[in-house]
């Protein structure tokens, strides 16, 4: 497919969002940079969280960036896949826990 909504090259253009709103972009990137610095969590732990969230929000740019990012922070393949399972478990759990709501409603309306 020649045309696509997603182009891998656009990841490198992320900074260009400043073109239309420099002040907000600058505030975002400052915040972003601060968030990923070593703190109470290590940079590797943060990269793995980002990788998991990238899968949960299904952002191909973020998956691209944080797969490499996790490797660069020294994570191994097993850790990366476990992080994705954590995201999957939460997403799956989030769907399933609403089953209680469904059950409540069923019990409310059924004889």
């Amino acid at each position, binding site marked *: 497919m020649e045309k696509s909504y997603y182009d891998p090259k656009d990841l490198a253009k992320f900074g260009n969002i400043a073109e239309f709103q420099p002040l907000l972009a600058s505030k975002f990137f400052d915040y972003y940079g601060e968030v990923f610095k070593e703190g109470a969590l290590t*940079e*590797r732990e943060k990269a793995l969280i980002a990788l998991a969230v990238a899968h949960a929000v299904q952002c191909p740019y973020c998956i691209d960036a944080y797969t490499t990012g996790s*490797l*660069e922070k*020294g994570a*191994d*393949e097993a850790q990366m896949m476990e992080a994705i399972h954590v995201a999957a478990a939460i997403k799956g759990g989030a769907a399933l826990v609403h089953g209680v709501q469904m059950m409540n409603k069923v019990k409310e309306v059924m004889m």
Partner: protein
Amino acid sequence: MKSLAAQHSLLADAAFQLDVLSQPLPQGRVFPAFGQRLQENGLLPLKPSQISILQINLGKMCNQVCKHCHVDAGPDRKEIMTRETMQLCLDALAESTIQVVDLTGGAPEMNPHFRWFVEELSKLGRQVIVRCNLTIILANKKYHDLPEFFKLHGVQVVSSLPYFTASRTDAQRGEGVFEKSIKALQMLNAVGYGQEGSGLILDLVYNPAGAFLPSSQQSLEAEFKRRLQQGYQIVFNNLFAITNLPISRYLDYLITSGNYEGYMEKLVNAFNPAAAANVMCRNTVSVGWEGSLYDCDFNQMLDLPVAATAPRHIRDFDLASLSERAIVINQHCYGCTAGAGSSCGGETVNP
């Protein structure tokens, strides 16, 4: 797997590699010249600081054929330093203030004069570093006593171990390398290497097993120490995180895997002036297997000798004129100046 030279690959030719690095990319895109980046930061010409290390390449022969090897070393490479050239190195060292000698290869231990050379360097009172690939210790009975030999001469052992798991290590260095490396590390530990208070230094080298940059050396070292201790009761002193330079076999990997442009972009974007100010070529001179002098092991493999203002062979070694030379640079130098910097001793910029 054969060396690029044995495969008659175009990339076995240094001039061809330099062409690849300087050519525009398919869409006409050109990375800025490395020299331009140095100039912008007041570092051109790049000059030596104080030359304190003589790195000597004892030959390209190796028992391994690693996918990222910048030397294109392997069992099929026959280039090896003669005893006469080693004697010239000893003569040069005896006349100089250089205190550290860093022996590399290929597998330096495969040079038939290796032990004699270490003994002579030891007699000169120089600190000797050996870049040991670990598996050589188990490759043949005649190498099994290398740990004891190293210990006898107080040699500092620096060994590559790309990762603390077999899959990633074997992917980079060959099937079965991880298991043999672990055994060799245990043998080194058994004679005291890496043990607290022994004075016997065992350092490990981490190279990313793919087209990505190394992470922080400090955090990697902590993770390696934890995993190697837990899994195999192995101890070591320091971990050096080294960036793969886009030359030779690693360049071949980058091109054939479609990662060349992305990796170069990463290196160029990660250019760090502080790392550039501390590159290893500023305190090291590299000697090729045939005695020629280079600014570093990478320039050696790219056939880029030291500037003509300085002596170009170990027989004419002159520390004063080498200290005045301008260091030869090219696009591959982005590899040593990315992020926290990269050298044979790991990061060049403290976190």
